[in-house]
Each structure stands twice: as C-alpha cells, then as structure tokens.
C-alpha cells in the first residue's frame, strides 16, 4: 500500500474552503496556514486528504505534507 500524495483541493476543503483561509505559508515539509475560523477546520479530513500530521494552535493550522509541500503549494496557489 502506498499513501497517496496529499491533494491540494481536499486540503483546502478540510481547511474550511478558500473563504476560511487568510494565508498559506509553504515550508519544507509543512503548510502553515492562518484561517479565519479554526472551528471550520477538520483534522480528520486533512488526514484523509493525505496530511501526515495536523497541529492547530489558535488560528494557525500546520499541515504536515512532507516532501510534496512544493507541489501542493503550487496547486493551492492555482486554486486560491
């Protein structure tokens, strides 16, 4: 079994959609996002979208996506 590469559209959905996102800062293995309403973020959906880990602290949501962060970030930029 192989874990699918994290999908940008599903990640954005799980973050509460583009309307809920203030910004997404792509790091080496993580997407650090600032959301408007953290209660709209669904960690289980993020995991299902291929995230390896999720850390939520206030409005800051860190999604661990691994070495695909660059590709996912490029896709996210297109979607937003």
């Amino acid at each position, binding site marked *: 079994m192989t874990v699918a590469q994290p999908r940008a559209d599903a990640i954005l959905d799980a973050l509460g959609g583009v*309307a809920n996102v203030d910004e997404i800062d792509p790091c080496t293995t993580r997407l650090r996002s600032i959301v408007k309403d953290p209660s709209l973020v669904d960690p289980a959906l993020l995991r299902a979208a291929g995230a390896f880990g999720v850390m939520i602290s206030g409005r800051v949501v860190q999604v661990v996506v*691994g070495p695909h962060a660059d590709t996912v970030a490029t896709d996210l930029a297109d979607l937003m």
Partner: protein
Amino acid sequence: MTTSPAPSPAPGATATPAAARAPRGAGLRTARGRHKYQTVRAYLVDLIENELREGDAVPSERALTERFGISRMTVRQALEALVADGVLQREQGRGTFVAPRRIDFEMRLTTFAEDARRRGMIPGTRVLDAATVPAVPRVAEELALKEGDPVHRLERLRTADGEPMSLEVGWIPAHLVPGLLDDGVPESIYGALRSAGLAPTWGEDTFLAAEATDAEAALLELRGSRAVLRTRRRTYADVGAVMYSQACYRGDRYSVVVPLREPRPVIVPRPREQDEPADTAGRTSP
C-alpha cells in the same frame, strides 16, 4: 574578548593526581572566591572560543595564578570545571588542552552510524532494550496507529570512538516489519527498513534543550554539565510513518546546523466579488 596576549604554558605545571580529585566548589564559599573563580573561568572560556584551536595548550596553572593574582586552588577548580564540561582535556604529565569541538550536526535522514563514519569516527551501539510492545497513545499518534497496536521498541546507547554520544528510543510499527527483531537487533534500523522496501525518504526533527535525567547522565557518562539536546524524529517512507524516535544527545559534543533558504511566497486568496460564493475548489463542508 581579551586583548592581552595569552600567557604561554609553563612546562612542568601539570595537574597532580591529587589535584584532579579535589572536590569542585571547595574554597569558593565566599563571594570574593566566587568572583575570582568566575573571572578566570570567563577568561579561559573566551580564550578557548576565540583564540585557541583544538589541541592547543591552555595557560598553565602557575601562569594563571600569576596573571590573576589568585590562589592556585581557584585556578585549578576553574580548569577542572572546564575539563568536566568537556571543553578542556587533561593529559597526564603534558598539560591541559582544548578538547575536540562539538560535532556540527546537519540533521539529515541518516543513521547515527552513517553520521559517525562520515566524520571519521567508529560508531558503536549498546542495545539497552528491545521488545515488541503495545503502542502507548503518544507513539500511536506519531505513527498513525491505534493505541495498543504492536510496535517494536528499541532503546540504544550510541557511541563514537567508544565514547557515549546519544541515547535513543525508537518505535517501529510491527505490522510493517514483523520479523525485525527475530535475529537480534539489526545493526541499522534504516538499513532493515530499506531491505524491507520501506526506505526512509523524509522526516521531521523537533529539538528541545533539556537537562539529562540521572539515568541519562549515568549512561552518557556526563561528568560536568547536564545539558543535552533532545530530539523527536518522525521518519517516513512512501507508505507513511515507519519510525518515531526520541534521542538525547550530549550537549557538550553537539551543535546543530540548520540549512536555511529563502521562504516561498505566502499564498493568499485572490480578491473576490463580495457576493460571489466561494469557488468550486473552496466549498466548505460543515
């Protein structure tokens, strides 16, 4: 930083075995004693950091006694404290020298043994414990398992050139490599994972500054400072998490190098008409 020239070491001014056994802190009970001790210690630390190289001799006890006008005992204590901290090394009958520098440590997805060999050191491992156990909540969380799922747990003391360097506990999901411990503990866990088609491809390390516990200090043979560097590592292969490990590195022998690069631009939503619903990709699901 000092501007005065460093006194050259006087021959014959080496520590006696009795001096090496002198208790630390003796004779420093007065504020005055404490102050003088700090002065000579600060002088030595500055000299070692900024002027001397690895293997250079530090000024002799006699030279330091004369330079600072303080007792030989205070000088000796300052030197001994730095020896205990691993900054200086004493060689019987020769003098006191600057110890090998900390090991620059660029975190990469390599094993301890690979790292040590790359530095020209001979790696060693003492297995302290190895068993297949139910995953505790933290380990289950890190490895995306259910609590109680079987994991191989390995506790190892890693050495370089025979010297203890780090203590490491690692957990590997048992279902991925059921026979991992069947023929004893493999020399390299990453090697065993690679053989099983689970080559580690990426990971994340988290660092914490800490003080060693009594048990850790004993195993790492820490004599002076108890400062250690704790790391938490999640190791991933294509299938997902393959190992979670916690390590405790000697603070006196390691420094961490973190390569930096310019950040990618931050992604912000494009401006939209106010009444326009979020676009198709941005549906919210609640």
